[in-house]
């Protein structure tokens, strides 16, 4: 049902927008082109911000430093009975979208779709965004270099989402 809804929204929205525009006697084609013109400039503006962000994350990921951090954390996590694998999702999620897809696929491979760990990771994946990517794209598009406290707010939201995903999934499925 949900998937069907998502499929239907976009064509219906486009239909509504164009028809409403015609009724209001708007030069729909000309206005569309006027708005679409900006697409290119925005994409080009984003490039330096995206390169800076993604390359730093790539170095961190390729070095295997993340695995080291997880290994260091696992004895601590085991003593309080906390699945350390979920932490990898918590760390990777704000950094990279494709990386967190990889972590989730990996967890499914190791634990199966029905396991609590996979459910926690999936809820975490679904409930937060790739903070650093969103930051680079949104501020890159308007050439903002000083991001003030946007990152703090975004990371605080990620942390809250991380804790909430674990506790809510635990409570919901047991």
């Amino acid at each position, binding site marked *: 049902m949900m998937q069907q809804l998502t499929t239907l929204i976009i064509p219906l929205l*486009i239909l509504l927008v164009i028809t*409403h525009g015609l009724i209001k006697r708007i030069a729909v084609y000309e206005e569309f082109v006027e708005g679409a013109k900006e697409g290119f400039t925005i994409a080009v503006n984003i490039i330096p911000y995206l390169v800076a962000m993604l390359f730093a994350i790539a170095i961190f990921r390729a070095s295997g430093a993340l695995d080291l951090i997880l290994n260091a954390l696992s004895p601590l996590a085991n003593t309080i009975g906390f699945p350390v694998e979920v932490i990898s999702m918590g760390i990777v999620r704000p950094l990279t979208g494709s990386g967190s897809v990889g972590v989730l696929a990996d967890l499914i491979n190791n634990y199966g779709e029905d396991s609590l760990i996979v459910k926690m990771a999936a809820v975490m994946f679904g409930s937060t965004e790739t903070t650093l990517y969103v930051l680079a794209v949104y501020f890159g598009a308007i050439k903002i270099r000083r991001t003030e406290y946007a990152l703090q707010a975004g990371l605080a939201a990620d942390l809250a989402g991380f804790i909430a995903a674990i506790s*809510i999934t635990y409570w919901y499925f047991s």
Partner: protein
Amino acid sequence: MLNKIWASLIILGISFAFAQDVHDEVYNTHSNGVHLQFKFIASNTSSQQLTLLIDGHKLNASLKQKQKIQIHLDESSPETLVKLASANSQKHSLIADIISKNNSSITLLMPEMHWQKLREVTQAAFDTAEFAVKLALGLIGIMALWLGLMQIIEKSGLINYLVKFIRPLLSWLFPNIPKDHPALASISMNMTANILGLGNAATPLGIKAMQQLQKLNPNKDSASDEMCMFLALNTSSVQLLPPVTLIAIMGTQVSELIIPIILATSCSTIVAVAVAKTFTARRRKTI
């Protein structure tokens, strides 16, 4: 803070790779200079073509003059050999020295491998730089499409219905945006797209909102309070329908996760708004 996180990702990454490589050099993890024995299936002794056997993998190889052998690699070849080849800037073959050879086996000295982790890190850096450009350019089309539609929505006044509906919420979140400013329209479109799980529509609409917030921003170089609040809302991903990628990975299983996702995302959004509001208040006080 962004500067520090960014720098520490790079510094941590490179130093860790360096430390690992030093460890590998000291303990010779890559077995440099060790003689490797392969069994081979001799089809014809006079032939220059051989089939080697290692760890259950069959590898084709051809003899070269001066006691050298070229091993041909493909996707099914052992990972260590493929890595070794790429460390020697080869993709599909590996050239090794023949130490000795008899009827059933051959002993080889593989090329050496040094500073592998640092090489991988450098390669990853270059690859992503290229990928970032592709990613940004890939946005052009979808961005143009939504910005075009958005222009019609604004001109025809359709947006006013939506804005009227969520104005009370918006005027609490963004008290300093004038009542009829177009930024409110873009923000409400972006939030609607997010709530419906339409990720690829939300980004162009969010950028449009950022551009309009920039017009209100007195200092064009640094983010305004409204921008920080808006970014916080977007990174905490307000949504009622799960993102399309999650549906793709989890399949129908997603439906039982919808309620936990909505609850968790509400928590993160509340925290995002609270943190952004706190920072705004603190900033006001110092000014």
